[in-house]
Structure formats: C-alpha cells, structure tokens
C-alpha cells in the first residue's frame, strides 16, 4: 500500500478501517540465501538494500523480540556526519546523504529533520580541534560552519553566556545534521524490505550458529533451524553473546547508555546542541519533549537500565548550558546496551568463518549510521568486498595497529 496525503484522506472518510499491516508475519522457511540476525535498524536496512539494490531477496530477518526493540528504538535520534578521521567521515557522510532521500525512497515519513547540530567549544584548544574537524568534513564533501560566541548569542539566546563555569566561546555547526523519528526508521525499512519479499520473523531468537568445516551453514532459533548460505550478524549491543555461538571473542564490551526525555514543551530549541565541557546533548522533538543524553554509565552490562550518578551528571551539564530548563521535568529515562569497541569505531566485515559476516561495534553512534551501515553491509554480503566508504571497519585492524580513534582514548571502551 502506497502512502500519501490522499490515502490518509480517503481512509479518514471510511473510518480508517482499510489500512493494511505494514509487514507480513510469515513463518520461517527452511532455507534462505541470507539470514540476518537482528531486526533492528541496521538489520532491516541491510535486508532492504540487499533486496532493493543488490538483487537478493530470499532473505530472512530474525528478531528475538519485536522489530526495532534494540537501540534504534532507544536513542536520542541524532543524525550527523561531523567526524574527523578518513576511516569514518566518508562513511558517515554517505549515511547522511542516504538519510536525505530516504523518506521518498521508502515512502514513509520518518521525520528526518535537518535542523542542525551544534558542538559548543569552551577553550581555544577546543576551537583548534573543531577547526581541524570542520576542515576534514569539508574536505570529505560534508558541510560545516564555525560560529563565534556573538553569533551563538543571536541564534540561541537561552544558552548561559554570562554565568557559566566554562564560558561558551563558540561552536561548530553542521546544518545538515538533525534528528529523525527513530522508531519510524525501523518501521520504514521493515515495510520496504517486506514489500521486496524479505521475511521478517519476530519473536524468533537465535540460539546457535551452525558451523561445519569452517563454513557457516545457518542458525538455530527458538523456532527451529534455519539454513542459510550467508549469515549476517547485526545485533549491536549483544554482539558478544551472539558471536560467542561462533566461538569468537570480539574487541567489544557491552555498556549501557541512558537517554532521557522531558514533558512536552512548546518548542524553543531549534536543533541539536552539544555541550563541550561535560556530557550533554539535547534536541526537542516534534512532540515537544526535550530529548537528551550524556555519557555511558561506564561498566559492562547487558541490563537496559542505568544508575543515578550518570543521570545527575547529565542534568548538571544540561543546567550548565541552559539554566532555563530547571523547571522542565524529566519524564522518562531509558537505557540501551551498546557495543563499545576498542577505538570507538564500528565493524562491517567478514569473519574467518566462511559465510559468517559481522556488523557491530557501533558504540553510541549507530543510529545515524543506519542507512550507510545497511547499504555497506548489503554491499559486502552481495559482493564479498567492502564498500569503498567502509574499507577500514575491519576486525583485524587492532592487530595491524590501524586505529580509528576519533577521541584518542585508546583501548578502553568506556572512554569512547
């Protein structure tokens, strides 16, 4: 069913009784060309692009719960491509470009809203780093803008320019950054993949990966064995658990990142704002809630919940830059389990086991990468060579010493 204003109007006239399911609920077949483990944003996007762009449609996406129940459904919805390193920036810029045409492409309004992202800086040294970053972005064909404190004062008068502990000296904008209605991304890709014949199988937990003679044969699931020519793992957050079925240890730890939303308020914050002297980033959703987050809790966990010290730290940082939010109330908090990698950058790679592929290690930045991750993973699955923008996301890079460490924190995942 194609969506349009006219369709909404027509359905409205007839009591909204003619809508159809956005995806089928098929039983798993015995065998597929590709089985994608994980019905999150990346897994669904991979299925969508495999079917649509790479001509492989005998695909199952197996999801242990409901689709979109992982981090695509529990993040702060930010999209941007303000990376610095050559291993990253072209990939994230590809992603942003895919976002820009996505709604028309899959006929679903995910409310991709390029209302800008701002990184505030508070010192000359930070400014120098942002100039380096901004120039890298421009060299990679992305957009960036530097703004001084005066300009910020004009655009964002509610920031604390006069009494803040760490003075706001300026910021770097990426005007094409912004936010997306996160759940709708999963739904849009699912609907698109389904329409190309992909089987989306919910409530189907993978319990094992069948490997014979170094070749992956398929998966064991709570709904039986499913054979596959290729198995594509795409379960960021739980990568360690799933890959242990294949006997692999990963350069990844699982950590929880909390996110928060306030009660609905009349819109005052135009884009995304990121604090530079603490951990805080905020935007305001189209429903009016201030959506914000901060640092990960910092300890290994698979529990989708966090603890108070981080909650309070995030609130402190929020009040530090915008003391007008003191009387806004925090309405909900939630936690997502992140694959924190050893250099803060992800993996899209083949494994040493034939037919077994891995996509993970997205840290807390996976949401914005969804389209490019799906596209590049599909490229790898279809052609067995990495996409040109994802050549560095290899599992063996630490052995070689080829680090993609944007923050320069080294092999300590909770610092990325």
């Amino acid at each position, binding site marked *: 069913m194609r969506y349009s204003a006219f369709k909404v109007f027509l359905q409205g006239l007839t009591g909204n009784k003619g809508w159809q399911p956005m995806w089928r609920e098929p039983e798993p077949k015995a065998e597929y060309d590709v089985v994608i483990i994980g019905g999150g944003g990346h897994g669904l996007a991979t299925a969508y692009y495999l079917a649509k762009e790479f001509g492989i449609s005998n695909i199952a996406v197996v999801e242990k719960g409901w689709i979109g129940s992982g981090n695509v459904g529990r993040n702060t919805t930010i999209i941007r491509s303000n990376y610095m390193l050559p291993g990253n920036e072209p990939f994230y810029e590809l992603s942003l470009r895919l976002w820009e045409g996505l709604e028309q492409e899959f*006929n679903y309004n995910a409310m991709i809203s390029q209302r800008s992202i701002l990184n505030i800086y508070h010192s000359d040294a930070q400014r120098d780093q942002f100039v380096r970053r901004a120039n890298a972005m421009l060299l990679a064909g992305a957009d960036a803008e530097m703004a001084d404190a005066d300009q910020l004062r004009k655009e964002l008068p509610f920031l604390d320019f006069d009494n803040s502990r760490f003075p706001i000296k300026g910021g770097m904008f990426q005007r094409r950054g912004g936010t997306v209605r996160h759940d709708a991304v999963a739904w849009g890709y699912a609907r698109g993949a389904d329409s190309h014949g992909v089987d989306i199988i919910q409530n189907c937990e993978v319990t094992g990966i069948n490997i014979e003679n170094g070749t992956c044969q398929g998966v064991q699931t709570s709904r039986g064995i499913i054979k596959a020519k290729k198995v594509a793992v795409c379960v960021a957050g739980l990568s360690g658990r799933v890959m242990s079925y294949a006997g692999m240890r990963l350069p990844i730890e699982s950590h929880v990142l909390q996110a928060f939303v306030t009660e609905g308020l009349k819109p005052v914050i135009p884009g995304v704002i990121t604090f530079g002297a603490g951990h805080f980033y905020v935007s305001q959703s189209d429903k009016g809630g201030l959506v914000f987050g901060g640092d990960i809790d910092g300890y290994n966990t698979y529990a989708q919940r966090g603890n108070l010290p981080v909650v309070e730290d995030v609130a402190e940082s929020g009040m530090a830059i915008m003391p007008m939010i003191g009387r806004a109330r925090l309405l909900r908090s939630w936690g997502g389990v992140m694959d924190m990698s050893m250099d803060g950058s992800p993996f899209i790679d083949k494994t040493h086991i034939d037919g077994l592929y891995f996509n993970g290690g997205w840290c807390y930045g996976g949401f914005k990468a969804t389209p490019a991750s799906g596209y590049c993973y599909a490229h790898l699955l279809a052609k067995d060579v990495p996409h040109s923008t994802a050549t560095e996301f290899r599992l063996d890079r630490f052995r070689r010493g080829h680090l993609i460490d944007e923050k320069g924190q080294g092999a300590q995942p909770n610092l990325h």
Partner: protein
Amino acid sequence: MTQYNRIDGGLIDRSRVLNFSFNGKQMQAHPGDTLASALLANGQKLVGRSFKYHRPRGIFSAGSEEPNAMVQLRSGAYLEPNTKATVVELFEGLSATSQNHRGSLEFDLMAVNDFLAPFLSTGFYYKTFMWPKKFWEKLYEPIIRTSAGLGKLSLQEDPDCYDKGFLHCDLLVIGGGPAGISAALSAGRSGAQVILADEDFIIGGRLNSEVYEIDQMAGSDWVLTAKAELETMDNVRILARTTIYGAYDHGIFGALERCNDHLASTNNKPRQILWRIYSKRSILTAGSTERSIAFGNNDRPGVMLAGSVRTYVNRFGVAPGKQVAIFTNNDDGWRTATDMAAKGVSISAVIDSREIDPRAKISGAGLFLGASVVDTTGRKGIKSITLSNGQTIECDCLAVSGGWNPNVHLSGHQRGRPEWREDIATFVPGKQLPVGMACAGAANGNLTLNSALHDGYDIAGRQMHDLGFEVAKPLTVDAEDESCEITPFWHVKESRKRAWLDLQNDVTVKDIKQSNLEGFRSVEHLKRYTTLGMATDQGKTANILALAIMAECTGKTIPQTGTTIYRPPYTPVPMGAMAGRSRGKDFRPFRLTPSHQWAEQHGAVFVETGNWLRAQWYPRRGETTWRQSVDREVEQTRKSVGICDVTTLGKIDIQGRDAAEFLNKVYVNGFAKLAVGKTRYGLMLREDGIAYDDGTTARLGEHHFVMTTTTANAVLVFRRLEFARQCLWPDLDVHLISITDGWAQYAVAGPNSRGLIRKIADKEYDLSNEAFPFMACKEISICGGTLARLFRISFSGELAYEIAVPTRFGGSLMEILMEAGKEFDVVAYGTEALGVMRIEKGHAAGNELIGQTTALNLGLDRMVSSKKDCIGKVLSQRDALNEEDANRLVGFRPVDRSHQLVAGAHFISKGNQPVMLNDEGWMTSVCFSPTLGHSIGLGFIKRGDQRKGEIVRAVNPIQNSEIEVEIVSPHFVDPEGERLRV
C-alpha cells in the same frame, strides 16, 4: 459565587481563606486544598485542552495520575509548565493559567483539530508530508511544531535553588497509606532505621479519602495517632511531599522532596531536594490507582474517577457536581454513591456493568444493573449520559470506576515484569523484584483495608527479622475488609463515538484497533505507534485499558499481551532538582593557583584549564590587544627573566626501594640510572603504544623521585601508575602520593633567571652552572631557611629554573620574585606566552598529545629504549603505526611571512586537489613568534621529517583561506639548545 461546591467535612482548615487566581480569575479556598479541589470548589470545570484534538478537559483524578488538569503555575522566571493541579498544594497568592490553547481556554482555535480527527488518525504523519522533499523543514515541520508541546518554558534562568542529599536506612517505606504506615510502625517498633516517604503533603493515603474506621475512629484520625507514635521514634523519619521516583541497583532509591513548593516564596532555601536513599530493605506500599472504562465521549469535563470523586467529597469537602451519576464494574464504585449520598449530594444514577444485586440503596438514584454508558453530551462540561438501554440521564458529574491497578511501577524498575491476577483483574508485582524489596497492601494486590494494614505490618516485620532486628508485637487493629468484587469490563462495545483511553495524548479505542490492523501488536509497538502512555501522566490511568483492548483485538489474554517496561521516574522530576547545586559558577569546583590573588591584583586574564584557573596573560596599561601583552611577556623573558606559575602541573611523590625500577616500566626511556640530584624528561605510552603524557622526573634520593605530569593528565597518570603498581607489579616496593596541591611551583626563565634565583636562595647553595647544571635538582632553602625545591629545567628554551615551596608560601614567593626581579625588569607571564615559547622550541603539548599519536609521530621514537620493557612497548611496534609515510611532527612557517597560520588547517601537496583523499596532515599549534617576527606553527604531516624545505598548501576551507607553508624543523629558536646550558 465563591466555593459554591463546598460541602461539610474534610481535612481543610476552614478558619483561614487563601486567595488564588486561575486564568486571572480571583478565587478563594482553604489551607489543605489542592489547586484541583479549590477549582472544583469554585465550580471551575474546564481547566485545559488535550494534546492532539484540543478537546476541553476538566479534572479527572485527585492525584499524580492526573492526565487532564495541567496548568502553568506561577509566572515570570518562576513559570512552571505542565503542573498537575491535583498535586499542587494551595498557597496564598497562587496563580495558575491553563495551557495548550490558541485563543482563550473557552474558545481554542486549535479545536478545529477535533473536527479533522478522521484525517489525523494514529500515525497519519508517517504516511504524508513527504512531498515535495524540501517542504518538510520549511513548511510541514514548522506547522507541526507550532502545535507541539503543552506548557511553555519561561526562557529565563530558573531562579530557585535546589539541593541534594543522602539518606541511609534499614527500611524504606514507599508510600504512607495504611500498609505503609503499619510497615513503618512495625519496623520502627523493632528499632530499625526507617524512612517513610509519601508524595502527598499529608500521609495516610486513601485513609484520608475514605470514611473507613480503624479502632472505632475515623481512618484519618487513626493516621494522626500512628503518625504521632512514629514521630516519637528517633529511628523513624517521615518524608511527606516526597516521591520515591526510581529504584536503582543495590537498594538505592531516588527521591524528590518538594520542601518549599507549597509556599509563595522559597526564601532562598532550596525549592526541592533530590535525595539518594540507601536502603537495606524496602517495602513498596504505594497503593493503587483507579482506572476508567472506555465509552463514547468519556473525556468530557465532569467525567472523573469514582475514587477521586470520593477524595474530593471526603477529604476536601467539595462536591464535584450537584447531580452525580456513577458508572462502575466493581463494588468500590458504589462507595462513591453512598459517601456522596451521605453528604447530601444528589445521585442521579448508579450504572453497574454487572448483573448483580444492588450493593446499596441510594435514595433518588436510578439503578441500572447490567447496563453501561454509551455516550455523553456537554462540550465544556458533561450534561447528560446515554445508557445502553437508550435512556438519557442528566448529570453534571460522572464518576467512573473500572477497578484499581496496584502501583507496581517501582517493582519493575529493574526490569521485573508484573503478573496478572485474574481475581482482581489487574497486574500485581512479579517475583523478580529489586534487591531487598517487598510489596504490601494495595500495591501488592491486597486491595482491602484490614488486609493492607496487616500485610504491611507483617511483611516489614519479616524484613527486619532478616536484618537481625527483633520483631515487634503483632498488630492489633480493628478494621474491616470492605468488598471489592469486580467483573472486568474494559470498554463499551456499543459505543459508536470515540472512546478515550489516554486522555492527554488523545488515544482512543479506534486507535488501538487501527494499530492492530497495521501490525503494531506488540505492546511496545502499540505504545510507540499510537503514543499511548507517553504523556506526562505516563499512562497511569490508560495503559491497562489499552492493553485489554489490544488483547481483545488479537485474541490473546492480557498477560500474553504483556505490559510495557516501567522506567524511572515514577512521576516527572524537575531538571533543576536533578542538577542540584551544580550549576552556574558552581557547576564544577575552581582550583586556584598560589599566585591567583597576586595575578588578580595585577589584572590577569584567566583561562580555564580543567578545573584550574590560570593566568593567561597580564595586560598592562596601554596595551590594547592580547597579542601586545603576550609578545611583551615573551620578549622580556627571552631578553631577561620571566615568572610563570606552573603549580598546576601534576606532581607525584614516588618513594620505595623499587621506585627506579617502577619508573623504568612506566616511561619509554630509562630512569634506573638517573643520578640523585638529576632530572630527566620522560614520555609515557598507553599500553596500546600511543603517547599520552610527558613530563620531568627528578631523583631527590636513592628511593625518592618527584614526577611531574601535564596539568590535564595529572589524575589519569596517577590512576594508571596505581594500576601498574597494584595490578601489574604488585611486588615492587613503590608508593605514590599526589603532592600537586602541596607545592607552589614557578618557572623562572630567561638569561637573568640565575641572578634572580641567586637573590632569594640562601647563600650556602652554589648555583653556578658547574655546581648546578642543566637538569640538576636539589632541596635548598630560600629567604632565610624556608624549604624549597629547585629544578634546573626549561620549557621556554632559556636558562631556566622551576622553584617550588610549600603552598602556604606560594603567594608570598610570587611577590618576592617580582620584587627581587625588579633590577632585571622581571615580567610575569601567562599560559599564552608559555605556549608561544614552547612552540618556538618545538615542544609537544596538549594539541599534539591527543591520544592519537605515537612516539614516532612526535619525533621522540629514539627515546624508546630497546633494552627494556615499558608500558606500550610491544603494541607500539605494530606495522600500521610504523609505516613509511607516518605523520611526523615538524615546524611550519608561511612562505609569505606576513601570513598567519591557522591551527586546524590541513596539508595538501601542491598540485593536489583539496579533498580528503589527498589530506596529508594538519596544523596542531600556531602562534605569532615575537622572536622571529612572524607566524609559526607545529603540525603533523606524512614523512615530515624527510620533507624539510618542501612547500605545501595549508588549506582551511572552513574559513575560506589557504596559504603556502614551508616545512621546517620544529625547533625555531636556539635549535642546538645552547641557551639552556649557559
């Protein structure tokens, strides 16, 4: 017409009158009222508008579950949006306004949405607004955003202050109703440390809302008696106005105490306190919340929860209507009828969905059994209801009871799932509870009074027994177990009109059905697709109804359909309270150097370096730009002598028999053979082979070293050294003490530095170049016997010293240095001049030690000893870190010397396109060199060490600039280091 809905009784103080205003209208009420009860007393039915359709809405409940009656409280910078009128304690002068309407509350222009409702069906926005593409940010979204949100922020800084605190207890009692009070009595009597918290401003819970008797006295009087007993116990603390909003790991709870919200002004005391409560055990006695029944137009002002109507009647002495109808599926609803009738309120009808014998005789009321309400009339206040038998009944208030849901929320904050209980048709806490938690009373499904009292008492007793306390004597109270029979009835299927579930977000039964139709059948999908339960009331009155309807749609049972996960906070918590005092200048502590006061007096401009404030430069009269000051400071230092406070560098005292061996392991270069009385520069790597800190370490004795670290990494280095000491080499005898704050340390630099030091050092010390050469160190005395440490080290490249004295002398030493230096025309210099001189010397600093660079990149690879192990050694040898075209730190100067370099510019070889593929490195640090008279820079560029003399492009597209630069040695001044050694 003041308070024409007042009736007798209640827990309000009628001897005093409070004046307040709503939408500018002046009204009166009494202490003990909430804003909601005060509005109802004054006959104000319409109080707000719903989120999506802007439907007129009134007061629905009497507690924190309220979905409708949201107001903006106070004004100006004190404006508090989205405040539930049902929990606002009335105070003199209170002003409130309604929100979310364009035009007046009565004539909201946005109410047009209600007529467009068929086209604004659930998720309609996912299906349209996509064409043309550009219109989203320009047109559609701005329109959507004008109708987003409910209340407004003031846009001004929150003028109130907040505090935080930490409490510890054996038992935390969450909720002060009958079960909670008896739990507190039980644990209190056994001698345990008890905290009893309740969100209301008086404890007692439903006992204040009902006419139950305990021990032959009114329930509310029994509460006072019990409270009096608890107040005599030193080991019991009662926190009223305190919501336990979250259950965190290991018995830690978050709590919000609204200490001064009930006052017109906080008088500079904290408005609210955010408590972190550490409990050994907790008992969830949070009671239960009534749910509604879905039927056509069940959202009109005047449609209320039946138990809440009772609250207004019994506790506040307010009749929410003159002619009241009751619609129930359970026995509790009947109590609303009997209580009101007893107070003389006219009951027009009792409608019970069950075919039962009447539970009471209500004079004048029609009884309709096995019947239901299918529709209502009255746009701004209910006027009549239509029953399933077609009959129409007039009423100005409809009290609805669909049964009671235990407040299980906190039991699920650690992802425990509640369990369904068929007999009371609701969810009760599951078995997987937060550590140390038990549940009792209505929160545990024991919905009747006597059982709740005993449940709380006994369970708390058992919990305290587990902790080793003696169990108190059994509870003896005389109370009844009232009837609470129920037959589930979720929605009136005959209703043709929209039937509301989530009143605030306007989610109706139809939306649930459509959600099912489109495949959003999992509870989480349902919630996310329809926005059910996402409003400020978090769906407390709506979620279970919606779940039941979804279960009906899919043919599953309710427990099979599941519930969404409960997450903190239980009720919304202000950001100000979450942040506490850490805001504005108090966001983080200030660290001040010993010369801070001197610098202030001398007009220094300060810069934040971590938490430190450091003098950045010292402007003098006549200087109009910072460059003039900095140039002067550099020139004068290089010409004569300058003083810089370098106290902020991390200083670590390292002692032990194995201290030298330890240093050998943590620095890339050797320290074992460093002579006593000597200092050495050292570089540290992370274990992954990347450089992260550098500094000098002095050997004061055979087993005694003092290490310096960079200012930024002082804490990190200390942590890593402790790790190395305790975890990697536990048998080394080495001990670390941070002495950063213990010593005031000044760099004294410049050709006349020896002369200056000579003036203050005590005479017995020979400071000649021979006796105290470059890199020497010594404990000496100065100014007639004061202990000092003298290091002959230099960051500026000049003959230089660092001199340290105990911090208490630091301020005085700065003055003495400046005084004694007058004959040399001494200058104080700040961090900018320090930076200029280090760039002139090519020393790496924070802009180069960014955690991404190796010793090789920094040109320090020859320091790495091949003869010994050190942290980071093995992994620094990986191929990709040692490639032929690795980045090298080199110097840059503009080909046209009048050009200025820019830090952050990228290097592109001449003839290449400025694109990422051709990117060869970047400029890390730049300055104007007053010594050379032009701009200079440091930067990383591929194979830089082999490209001296080459000219490359320094592109800076972000500022639309590009210049040609020449690759040069990073040592711009005195490359041979002769000045250091004179």
